[in-house]
């Protein structure tokens, strides 16, 4: 623990929400990036059973449709 004294100079009522907020914003950004740059997240959210069944019978392993790189 090397930053244990940080709260002597940063008020916890400011630092803690700021820290949690930053993590939330970062996490949201990553999820948004995944949603826009992959196909499997949207397919998953759509839950279109047709695709899952097709994948199941065709490829056997539930690999995602080829993601456009």
């Amino acid at each position, binding site marked *: *623990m090397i*930053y*244990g*004294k*940080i*709260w*002597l*100079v*940063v*008020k*916890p009522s400011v630092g*803690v929400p700021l*820290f949690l907020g930053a*993590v939330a914003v970062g996490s949201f950004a990553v999820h948004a990036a995944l949603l826009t740059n*992959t196909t*499997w997240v949207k397919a*998953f959210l759509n839950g279109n059973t047709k695709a899952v069944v097709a994948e199941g019978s065709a490829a056997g392993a*539930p*690999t*995602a449709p080829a*993601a456009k790189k």
Partner: protein
Amino acid sequence: MDDPNKVWPTGLTVGESEELHRNIIQGTQIFGMIAALAHLLAYIYSPWLK
């Protein structure tokens, strides 16, 4: 200078600051483990490195 009972500008003593920080570190570790599990599940569902 390093009086353990000295109250700093934020209103905390060194002990209180380190106690708070220990909890923050623990929370971050728990978050990290949950995230690692989520990444494992996501990779099983859709391997992105293949």
